[in-house]
């Protein structure tokens, strides 16, 4: 058995070190020298990473025994007992390593990237606060602690999207992100209540076994619980219909986009579903919904990605789309495959964003790919690493994205060949828009201003080293889950397997071993690789050979293209059906209802009282002072009269 007490301090320190980093940089903002700020912030993250590695090792050495670390009782009322405690198991450890590992690289990168920003200290403080919240989210041993982290990362996201708060558009984007997330959070919260009132606990280790005995497959309550939790996931992980905040969130500094809006926070929804896998396995109906929404999001975002011209917006839609793939994986109960994609996506998408940051840095804050081109000569390291990431995300072997995406696709095929076809079309689009982005940015000749061209330079080492590390991970990350058919042992799936023991018990049929023959697997792989290569070729022909450049702003586009270019007018749609009616309702209630209806009734009652009280007319001088004084006098008289009885 593992001696639990030995790890209490380690577990507590993992999130609290970044919290201390936040406090130091937050309180010392504008007083601590810049060098020290970056060092403190990064050191906090790296220390956490070190401790996570230590814990991971101890976990492996201890025979993969999961354990709970209890700190204190947070809220106790009646039967509801919420303890502040952490659950350490395969899932939380994997998340810990991603968050602190990728987090550390991004902290180091930020030292260079944010160097000239006046809010340098504030930036590092917020990054550390984010780490703290994200770590709470994945470590919490019950839903409410997870919810603390869940809302905490939402706050950090808000603070960092609106980091440059003089700009009203950025502030609006930040607010939109927070509010949309809160819509999801309400669902999550109601889900927690329903869990508590039906199962009598909120602790993961108590809820899941109880659920397995209480609920039958597709019980109405378990469908309700899982759908409510999924609403939370939609908000945090930017799925239809709550995805529109993520592209806007690109207003934040680029390292933030890499850390929060690509590698970690937005995968919280996937984490939540995997954490609750027993509940989801019990609710095939919900899984169907998850799969359909995931697939729809993947396709919708991919089409939008094809026509975007802002380097970060392309990546943002690609993130939404990739998250869709992860939910598609979850929807077909391929939980560990979805986690595999979370991991590889964290590597290559963080790399893509950091690469984009390097480009933006070199381009003097230009983000429009129509004004780039030919950058590979000026930014060789950025180009090479960006290329690796692009191949990885496009699903071309042997880089990591291929393996994780392929594992999901394989499970989707078993579930429904139609969905598989659609998913492959989506990955074709992925390959196309990513190579389009790569070619427009790095190939051909420079299309920006002379001034920009003169300024072009490769980024400093603090920025390129994280790029190189992430490039290695993006290239080699596939070994984590190398499938058997390619001679691997799929370590990740085996490692995570105990997490799904209970799910296997409640619905064994959703976990049956693959019935695909090896040759079928080869064919499926071949098709998806061919599709990706085909799209690559198309992008190469269009943007390298023919040197096509997307039309400048204001050009009349064909109707369909125009529709997609304007993101299907979803923002405008929401504005018209939700925002405007809400504001109009507010105006109506305040301007009309409040003053006419309610005050009329009140004044009517007042008048009626006035009429009835004619008897007392003598006292009605209309002078408030008189009323009050008479009241005071009355009270004093009563007091005085009875003072005798009181004292004696």
């Amino acid at each position, binding site marked *: 058995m593992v001696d639990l007490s030995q790890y209490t301090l380690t577990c507590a320190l993992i999130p609290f070190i970044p919290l201390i980093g936040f406090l130091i940089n937050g309180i010392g903002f504008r007083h601590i020298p810049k060098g020290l700020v970056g060092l403190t912030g990064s050191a906090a993250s790296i220390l956490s990473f070190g401790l996570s590695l230590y814990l991971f090792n101890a976990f492996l050495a201890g025979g993969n025994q999961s354990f709970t670390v209890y700190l204190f009782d947070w809220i106790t*009322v009646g039967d509801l007992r919420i303890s502040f405690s952490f659950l350490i198991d395969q899932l939380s450890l994997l998340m810990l390593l991603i968050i602190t590992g990728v987090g550390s690289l991004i902290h180091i990168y930020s030292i260079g990237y944010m160097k000239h920003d006046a809010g340098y200290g504030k930036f590092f403080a917020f990054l550390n606060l984010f780490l703290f919240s994200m770590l709470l989210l994945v470590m919490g041993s019950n839903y409410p602690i997870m919810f603390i982290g869940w809302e*905490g990362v939402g706050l950090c996201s808000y603070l960092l999207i609106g980091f440059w708060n003089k700009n009203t558009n950025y502030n609006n984007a930040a607010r939109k992100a927070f509010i949309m997330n809160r*819509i999801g959070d309400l669902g999550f919260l109601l889900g927690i209540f329903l869990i508590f009132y039906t199962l009598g606990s909120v602790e993961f280790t108590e809820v899941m076994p109880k659920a397995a005995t209480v609920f039958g497959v597709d019980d109405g309550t378990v469908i309700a619980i899982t759908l409510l939790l999924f609403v939370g996931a939609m908000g945090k992980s930017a799925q239809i219909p709550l995805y529109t905040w993520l592209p806007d969130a690109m207003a934040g500094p680029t390292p933030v986009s890499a850390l929060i809006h690509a590698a970690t926070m937005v995968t919280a929804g996937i984490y939540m579903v995997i954490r609750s896998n027993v509940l989801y396995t019990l609710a095939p109906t919900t899984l169907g919904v998850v799969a359909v929404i995931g697939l729809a999001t993947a396709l919708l975002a991919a089409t939008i990605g094809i026509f975007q011209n802002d380097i970060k917006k392309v990546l943002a839609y690609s993130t939404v789309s990739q998250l869709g793939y992860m939910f598609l994986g979850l929807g077909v109960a391929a939980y560990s495959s979805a986690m595999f994609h979370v991991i590889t996506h964290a590597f290559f998408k963080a790399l893509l964003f950091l690469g984009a940051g390097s480009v933006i840095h070199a381009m003097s804050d230009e983000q429009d790919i129509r004004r780039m081109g030919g950058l590979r000569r000026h930014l060789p390291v950025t180009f090479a690493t960006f290329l690796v990431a692009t191949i990885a995300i496009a699903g071309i072997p042997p880089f990591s994205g291929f393996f994780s995406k392929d594992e999901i696709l394989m499970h989707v095929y078993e579930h429904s060949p139609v969905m598989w076809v659609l998913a492959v079309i989506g990955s074709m689009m992925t390959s196309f828009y990513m190579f389009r982005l790569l070619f427009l940015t790095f190939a051909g000749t420079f299309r920006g201003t002379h001034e920009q061209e003169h300024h072009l330079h490769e980024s400093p080492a603090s920025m390129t080293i994280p790029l190189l590390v992430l490039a290695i991970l993006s290239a080699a990350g596939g070994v984590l889950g190398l499938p058997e058919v390619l001679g691997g042992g799929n370590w990740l799936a085996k490692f995570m397997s105990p997490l799904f023991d209970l799910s296997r018990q409640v619905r064994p049929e959703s976990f049956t071993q693959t019935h695909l023959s090896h040759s079928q697997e080869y064919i499926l792989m071949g098709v998806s690789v061919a599709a990706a290569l085909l799209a690559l070729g198309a992008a190469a022909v269009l943007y390298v050979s023919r040197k096509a450049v997307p039309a400048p702003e204001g050009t009349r586009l064909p109707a369909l293209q125009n529709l997609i270019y304007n993101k299907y007018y979803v923002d405008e749609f929401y504005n018209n059906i939700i925002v405007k009616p809400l504001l109009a309702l507010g105006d109506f209630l305040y301007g009309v209802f409040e003053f006419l209806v309610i005050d009329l009734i009140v004044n009517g009652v007042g008048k009626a009282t006035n009429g009835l009280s004619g008897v007392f007319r003598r006292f009605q001088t209309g002078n408030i002072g008189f009323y009050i004084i008479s009241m005071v006098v009355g009270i004093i008289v009563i007091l005085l009269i009875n003072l005798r009885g*009181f004292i004696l």
Partner: protein
Amino acid sequence: MLTIFLIVFPLIAAGFALLAKGESVKRIAFLFALVEFAAALYAIFQFTPGPAPQFVANYPWIASLGISFHVSMDGISALLVLLTTLLVPFIILSTFGNSYKNPSAFYGLILVMQSALVGVFTARDAFLFYLFWEAALIPVYFLAGIWGGERRIQITFKFFVYTIFGSLFMLLGLAYLYNQAGTADLDAIYALNLPAATQSWLFWALFIAFAIKMPVFPFHTWQPDTYSESPTPATMLLSGIMLKMGIYGVIRWLLPVVPLGVAQWGTTAIILSVIGIVYGSVIAIRQRNVKRVLAYSSFAHVGLMSAGVFTLSPEGLQGAMVQMLAHGVNIVGLFFIMEIIYRRVPTRELNQLGGITQNTPNLTVYFMVLLLGSVALPLTSGFVGEFLLLAGVFRFNPWYAAIAGLTIILSAVYMLRLFQGVMFGQPNEQTALFSDLTLAEKATLIPLVVMVFWIGMYPAPFLKLTEPSVTELLRLVVR
């Protein structure tokens, strides 16, 4: 005796304040308020955990009529006494940067009010309770009527009519109860077993008074005007402490007194409260005056507390308890922030502010923390209460909880809009010269911010203080 001391001491302090000359009265009043707070803290530390009322003082008063001077504190009273005595020093401290004409009267009234509030929260005799209830209003009338804004006379009158209207019903109800029990003592009133039909009308007689005080929809139209026209210290007293009189009234003088009436009308009360949450929030989104945003937010928040109380669940009642404390701290802090801004840029219009954060790292942080407390971000004060209240409402009816839960979305909408409008964007001519917090302002805000985190991170001491009394109360109601 301790309870009597807590009631009488502020009155004596008020006497000293009236004798004091000039601005020094501020410091005198502050010191007295601190002593009062220390006494309350002493009481809390001496408090034996359990449901029994403690520090009892029970003297025959108008013996022939069965009226006695009966005061005591159980956990529920203790928490509200703590809230009152904690906030009053801050409210006084928050005025150190202002000067009011006729200061001795101003601070004297605040102290008189404190005395009456402590009386309301500790009285165990119907007559005494009514006396303190009305006495608590008088200082506010004067504070709002003398030191208020331009429309003060008209608005104070509306406030006056409203509250007197409510109080008359309550008087009627209490008089009837007194008549039935033959004594004004609360325990005797609890022991009455009135027929359901009687309890039915008694419910409304008492509820209307409490509903106006909180206020619950649709008895609220006095509130935004009064909040925005009163001088800020009076607004703080109103929103920070006085609205809790309504919640407390329901808990102590309604639920156990007319349990059958509650069984009949509780759902109606919850529905009205839930309507108020959404109604107040939606209106808050459209306000241009910063104090009115806070006024409507307070209206929305109190709706959730009221709904939670009427669910008669431990979650709902304990949530209301901790939320009363949290809301008191948050709203006093936020009104103070608005006052700090008003001192530098004398406007309350949102569109004339903006860009303030550029010069004010300190103000930004304190404002943000108080705002997070108000929008119930986990680990800050508002979350614990809101979580428990919504859990209580969910237990009662999940659909109500889904609607009441809109508060977590809408509060983010109006509070972030307020924050963005005031702090972010480009500074204008006036806000560009904005100076950060003074030492006195920091001294007021830091303890409030500490409270925001304390309640949010470790609410156990507060929950434990009230839990036995709440359990006992529920035993009385659900019988």
